[in-house]
C-alpha cells in the first residue's frame, strides 16, 4: 500500500508544482515507484514542468468519469524509471473532482505505487481540499514572507481538522515544512524571515530549505524537474529534502552566505 503525499501551501506561486515535480522525481530516482498527480483542474501545469505536455492524452477527470482507465492516462517519464505523471484536466467544471472519484483513483494508484504525490492547487477550495483530504503526509511549501507563512498556518489547520485522518480519528497527517526561495544573504541583512523564524511560527519539522536559484526557472523552461540538475544548488537542496523524507540525516546546505575575504566584504556586492 503506497503513501499519499500532498504538496500544498495555500498561497500561489510559492513553488508547489516545482517542488512536486522535484520530490516525485527524487523519490523515483531513489528506487520507489512514484506517480505525481496534478489536482489543479482547469489550470494544468505540472505536465509542463515535467516536460510531458505533448504526451497528455487522457487526464485525471477522464479517469474519474470512466472515459479512460488509469493505465491509459498515466504518462511514463522517459528519464527516470518508475516515475509517472497523471495530468489535470483543462475542464472548467469545478465539481469534476468528486470525493468518491478521487478516492477511487487514489486507492487504485496506491496499489500500484510506493508514493502518490499530489500537487495541490493554490487556495483552499475544492481541488486543494481534495488533494489534502486523503493525505498520509503533507509537504507544506512556504516562502519566507508574511502572506505565505500565514497561509501555510491556515493550511496546517485544515490538515489537522478536515483531512480524512483527522475525521476518522487516526494518526494525524505527518507535516513537513519545505522553505523555498530562501536568500541567506537577505536573511543576514535582516530583510527576510530566517528558517528559524518560520520554524518557530509554524512549529513543524523542517524537510528542507531551497535557495532562491536561477536553476529553477532554467529547469522549468526546459521541462526538466530541477532535481535532475545535479550541479545546481536548488537541485542538490531538493535531493537533500528527498533523502530526509526517506529517513536519512542530511545537514542543511545553502542556508549560509559563503564567506568572503576582507576585500570582498568591502567592495563586493
Amino acid at each position: 500500500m503506497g503513501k499519499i503525499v500532498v504538496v500544498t501551501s495555500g498561497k500561489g506561486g510559492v513553488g508547489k508544482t516545482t517542488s512536486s515535480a522535484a520530490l516525485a522525481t527524487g523519490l523515483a530516482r531513489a528506487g520507489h515507484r512514484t506517480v505525481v498527480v496534478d489536482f489543479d483542474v482547469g489550470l494544468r501545469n505540472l505536465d509542463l514542468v515535467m516536460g510531458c505536455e505533448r504526451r497528455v492524452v487522457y487526464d485525471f477527470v477522464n479517469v474519474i468519469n470512466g472515459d479512460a482507465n488509469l493505465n491509459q492516462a498515466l504518462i511514463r517519464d522517459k528519464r527516470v524509471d518508475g516515475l509517472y505523471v497523471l495530468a489535470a484536466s483543462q475542464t472548467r467544471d469545478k465539481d469534476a473532482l468528486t470525493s468518491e472519484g478521487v478516492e477511487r483513483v487514489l486507492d487504485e494508484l496506491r496499489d500500484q505505487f510506493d508514493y502518490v504525490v499530489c500537487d495541490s492547487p493554490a487556495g483552499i477550495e475544492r481541488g486543494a481540499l481534495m488533494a489534502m483530504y486523503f493525505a498520509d503526509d503533507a509537504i507544506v511549501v512556504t516562502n519566507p514572507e508574511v502572506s505565505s507563512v500565514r497561509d501555510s498556518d491556515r493550511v496546517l489547520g485544515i490538515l489537522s481538522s478536515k483531512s480524512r485522518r483527522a475525521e476518522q480519528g487516526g494518526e494525524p497527517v505527518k507535516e513537513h515544512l519545505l522553505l523555498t526561495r530562501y536568500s541567506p544573504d537577505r536573511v543576514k541583512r535582516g530583510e527576510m524571515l530566517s528558517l528559524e523564524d518560520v520554524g518557530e511560527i509554524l512549529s513543524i519539522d523542517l524537510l528542507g530549505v531551497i535557495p532562491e536559484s536561477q536553476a529553477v526557472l532554467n529547469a522549468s523552461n526546459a521541462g526538466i524537474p530541477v532535481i535532475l540538475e545535479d550541479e545546481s544548488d536548488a537541485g542538490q537542496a531538493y535531493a537533500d529534502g528527498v533523502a530526509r523524507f526517506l529517513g536519512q540525516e542530511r545537514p542543511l546546505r545553502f542556508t549560509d552566505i559563503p564567506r568572503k575575504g576582507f576585500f570582498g566584504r568591502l567592495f563586493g556586492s
Partner: protein
Amino acid sequence: MNLLGYFRAQRNKNTASVAKERLQILVARERAQRGGPDYLPALQEELLLVIRRYVEVDQDAVQIQVDREGDCEILELNITLPDHQQGR
C-alpha cells in the same frame, strides 16, 4: 554587503523582525479562533439562553475559548455580568 550597503542597512529598521512579530500575533489569534470543536458556537448560544433566564446580559457576554497545553485541553468560559444585577 559592501561598506556603503552596511551603512544603508543600519538606517533601515530590521524588517524581518517586524514581520516575525506581526506573524506571531496574527497566527496566535487565528489559531485560537479555529482550534475549537465544532459545537462551540451552539454551546455559546445555549449558555447565553440559560444565563438570560436569570440575568439580562448582552449578546457578547459569553466568551468561549479552547486552549491547548501539551496533551491537555482547557475550555475557558467567560461570562460578563452587568454592573447592577437584577434578579427575576
